[in-house]
């Protein structure tokens, strides 16, 4: 699996499709989390919420980096479509994890760290949001959705719903707690659990849907 992830990262890097989401995320960090008076936790709410969107953007761009013919050859090397999709998910998650680290380091640089818990909560919150973002956007990628113009619209709609709709308690309780400046471990646990479940169940489901798509 390591080889599959390395290959996907190499294709993504060469395609330079990571540049727009990476720049957008840096812009969000620069504009919305650079106020030293705002506090670290509310800043995490903004940067983790933004990372949910950016991670979804990343996975769609990463899947798009290989054209369908090239993807078929990659599947022949890996032996199954599921391994390909798992490699793509892990590669996108790795990119999002780097963004999460950047966001937390940025926060420490701006706000300092009031306790050891703050950066830990921040990092875990970002990782949870990144995982949910990848999992929610994956079914909207080229693996399943053939119409290129439809993919970003579908993904953005779903991701914004996850972010803002109170009745979808995936990351919303966590972000609300962070915005209020409180560290809610149950909300963090729920978000991490949601990310793990969505990624764990969604990856094979998307692989199965992609396999059926050409039928």
């Amino acid at each position: 699996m390591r080889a599959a992830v390395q290959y996907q990262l190499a294709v993504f890097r060469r395609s330079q499709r990571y540049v727009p989401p990476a720049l957008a995320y840096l812009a969000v960090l620069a504009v919305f989390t650079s106020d030293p008076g705002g506090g670290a936790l509310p800043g995490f709410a903004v940067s983790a919420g933004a990372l949910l969107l950016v991670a979804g953007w990343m996975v769609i761009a990463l899947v798009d980096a290989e054209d369908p013919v090239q993807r078929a050859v990659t599947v022949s090397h890996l032996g199954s479509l599921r391994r390909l999709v798992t490699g793509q998910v892990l590669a996108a998650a790795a990119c999002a994890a780097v963004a999460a680290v950047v966001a937390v380091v940025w926060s420490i640089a701006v706000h300092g760290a009031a306790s050891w818990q703050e950066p830990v909560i921040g990092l875990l919150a970002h990782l949870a949001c990144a995982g949910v973002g990848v999992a929610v956007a994956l079914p909207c990628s080229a693996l399943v959705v053939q119409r290129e113009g439809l993919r970003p619209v579908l993904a953005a709609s779903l991701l914004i719903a996850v972010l803002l709709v109170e009745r979808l308690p995936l990351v919303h309780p966590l972000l609300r707690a962070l915005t209020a400046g409180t560290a809610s471990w149950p909300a963090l646990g729920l978000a991490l659990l949601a990310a793990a479940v969505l990624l764990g169940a969604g990856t094979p489901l998307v692989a199965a849907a992609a396999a059926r798509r050409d039928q």
Partner: protein
Amino acid sequence: MHPPEVELLRLAQVSKRYRSARPLRGADLVIGTGEAVGVVGANGSGKSTLLRLAARLSRPSGGAVRGDPTTGYVPDRFPAQQRMGAREYLRHAGRMRGLPAAETEQRAAHWLDRFWFAGGVDTPMRRLSKGNAQKVGLAQALLADPELLVLDEPWSGLDGPARDVLAEVVAERVEEGAAVLFTEHQAGYARTAATRSLRLADGVLTEVAERPPEVRIVLDGPVPPERWAQREGVRRVRPEPDGTELVVEVAQREPVLAEAIDAGCAVLAVQEVEEPA
């Protein structure tokens, strides 16, 4: 010598249906070790679909695909937008196949050299000519010595020396006990490289009957067409404005030419007859 033929893959009554087309309608195919199976068919007849099913890259709408040999796959166009160089791409391909790095480097260099790859190993593949990209495609498929090679019109775009090398490689893989499944437009070429030829038409595969290769000879001289029509090895005779056209079995080419020259005929043309796909 390769081991006795063992079944590697079986396609049983496979069909494939898309929204607007049904390229396969119950095709049967068994591929065993030590076989090179050539599939001929017109454009759009479903050859590529058949190969994708055989390479387990697509699922049939009906029927079953049994067997799971390690497979090397070369699509009919390779690749469309890959920005990596051949060296880096093959390194990743080797890793994904579980080959050690040093062995991958060695094998990649071997196959690129053997196919006379001349595009620059670090040149982004999307800047390579069709022929050089095809050579990288062949190298990635051969890298890990797969049990089954699935090649979609592999001779397309290759230059003369590389075409000959590919024919040698197919023969070697068969001799080593692997299997090769390929498509080709030209039935004659498919027959040369294949141990068995199949035709795909109307969504069904049929064996191509063995028939000795033929040549077309155009003669101008005193021998009447009726006499040629009775001669052994002459399949067809047709009067032409500037002489007489004979279609002759290749084995009878030299005797017929010698006889024609002895009889005072001028030889206007000798051409290989290419069977239509």
